[in-house]
């Protein structure tokens, strides 16, 4: 991956606090996202992974400006879009799109497929060469659907097909980056594979950048170039997919990876079981947030929050005072070739 090209998307210190109000007095805030820093290069796919409630969906929503960030900055293709109004964002909409998780809720039941996919064009008053209908049918074909389905209704399609319609809609304005918010979690395994393959083809053919949000490590490993592991609103480790999956440095990442069920290495040995529950985001633990569930937490972890920096030559950034070292029992399934 050539590091020197200008990052398409760069996020610095992104935070989002949901104030909790008891009557009129605000009593603390849920610090869903608490200072994220990451970049995404054109054509590159960054995976955001973490347990539910770690703030990954909130981040996704903020990137597409469905939510107003509390502080920090989002720069897309060189322009700061953190607090832009609807008019400033008009240009942004064409390059940055989102795909949702629930195929049944993301399509308007009363609109025909044609109208759904054409919506982004219609909203931004863009008439592509050759007319909207032709463009829509191209998109349908692109996502593997029969163009004749133009005036069918969502209730006449399966979950997988609906997700394809959602993708077609996202591609309508030829975006440069797509935020995919758990696009396949609601689908059956077989259909998941189909949709993932479709996304990978698009990634390759249209040189698309993705921010791929998921909690399924296997899907992330299959699709993403770089991976960021999130815990309680912060990124605890970020780096290339291979280094993260083979030599995870942050204890939490290691625990997550050990949880991947692998038929070949049965037995408890390989599995690290975390104790206790995820602490409340209302007032996260002092110092390192993971210390309450980390088996090797020390006083030092409680006093000073570890910064996200490179710990050794591995190239990935880790936020841990005592990073792990050495390879983890890598599942023997042969790594699927990932195009650069």
């Amino acid at each position, binding site marked *: 991956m050539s590091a020197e090209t200008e990052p398409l998307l760069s996020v610095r210190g992104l935070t989002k606090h949901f104030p909790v109000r008891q009557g009129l007095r605000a009593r603390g805030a849920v610090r869903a996202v608490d200072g994220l820093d990451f970049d995404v290069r054109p054509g590159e796919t960054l995976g955001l992974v973490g347990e539910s409630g770690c703030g990954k969906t909130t981040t996704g929503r903020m990137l*597409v*400006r*469905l939510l107003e960030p509390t502080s920090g900055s989002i720069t897309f293709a060189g322009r700061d879009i953190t607090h832009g109004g*609807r008019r400033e*964002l*008009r240009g942004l*909409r064409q390059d940055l*799109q*989102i795909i*949702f*998780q*629930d195929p049944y*809720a*993301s*399509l*308007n*039941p*009363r*609109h*025909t497929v044609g109208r*759904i996919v054409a*919506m*982004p064009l219609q*909203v*931004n008053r863009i008439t592509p060469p050759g007319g909207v209908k032709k463009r829509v049918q191209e998109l349908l074909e692109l996502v593997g659907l*029969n163009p*004749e*389905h133009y*005036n*069918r*209704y969502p*209730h*006449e*399609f*399966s*979950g*997988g*097909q609906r997700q394809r319609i*959602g993708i077609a*809609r996202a591609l309508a*304005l030829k975006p440069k980056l797509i935020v995919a918010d758990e696009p396949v979690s609601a689908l*059956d*395994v*077989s*259909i998941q594979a189909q949709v993932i393959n479709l996304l990978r083809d698009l990634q390759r053919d249209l040189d698309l950048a993705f921010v791929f949000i998921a909690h399924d490590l296997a899907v992330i490993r299959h699709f993403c170039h770089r991976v960021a592991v999130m815990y309680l609103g912060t990124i605890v480790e970020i780096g290339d997919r291979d280094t993260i999956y083979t030599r995870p440095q942050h204890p939490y990442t290691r625990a997550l990876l050990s949880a991947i069920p692998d038929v070949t290495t049965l037995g408890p040995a390989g599995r690290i079981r975390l104790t206790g529950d995820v602490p409340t985001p209302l007032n996260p633990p002092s110092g390192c947030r993971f210390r309450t569930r980390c088996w090797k937490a020390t006083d030092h972890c409680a006093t000073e929050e570890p910064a996200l920096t490179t710990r050794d030559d591995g190239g990935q950034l880790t936020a841990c005072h005592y990073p792990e070292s050495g390879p983890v029992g890598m599942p023997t399934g042969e790594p699927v070739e990932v195009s650069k």
Partner: protein
Amino acid sequence: MSLSPVEGAALAEIESSDQEPDEKKRLVGRSPGQLVWARLRRDRTAMVSGVVLALFILAAVAAPLIQRLYGVSPNQQFGDLLDATGMPLGYVGGVSGDHWFGLEPGLGRDIFIRMIYGIRTSLLIALGAALVTTTIGVVLGIVAGFLGGVVDSVISWITDVALALPFLIFALAVVPTFSLRFYGPRDAVPTWFAVTTLIVVFAAFGWTGTARLVRGQVVSLREREFVEAARASGAGLGHMLFRQLLPNIWAPILVAFSLAVPSYVTGEAALSFLGVGLPESVPSFGRMIYRSIDYLQTDPAYVFFPGITIFALVLAFNLFGDALRDALDPKSSR
């Protein structure tokens, strides 16, 4: 690869649809509207009440034509067909060849033609009022439901005040003064003005029910992802409200509308009952029924004809409204 039944069918459909063109025709797209229409056609009650309604509306629209064929005008008086105390001569309240439903006791006007014009006035008011109130209710409901926050609480507060204000007292105060405000003591108040006054009075109060209903629906739809998808693509408020949300709340609006109409027919009759509705010169259903009640013991026929007609009209609307609700309800088993 475990395929759930739903997925399996869909897969089969994709593979098969490319190969056999004839099968494609069978699966031509049927919009939710067409689905509802199919359900309605199968429901006998809906059809019967639908036909009855059509007849009523036809009679109302063709009132002048019917008058020309029937040969008697609504204000024509037949004093000679009444006895000394004003009761119609002959059987069943004066029913005869040229007076199918008999004569009004006292004034001696023909009941049949007055009822036709009466239906026209009442339906005009009822449909007008239902239309206006539903529109106001929908707009306020959507705005309150979608924007939430301060706007929502203000609109809800206005709804509370409108619900608390006693409608009849308001109507009693406003209706008589309305015409005095716009027309001098010497010029005649045209019929359409009297009808509009009633519609305005009904509209001032009728929207609260629909507003609350629509607000509830919009609040639940607002979070749905297809709305967020539109917002993410830069859709404005107008697009989100009226292109994305509105099509999804037609069902409750239609049902509210179809049940509002009979309540306004009864409302107009109630206002006439209190002597506030339309002036005597305008043939009105409510006024005729209200006047006929006193003749229950002396000229029951005069009570029978308008009574059974308003019963049929309101019943038909109620039945049609019910059937419509069942047809529109996606979960309904029929």
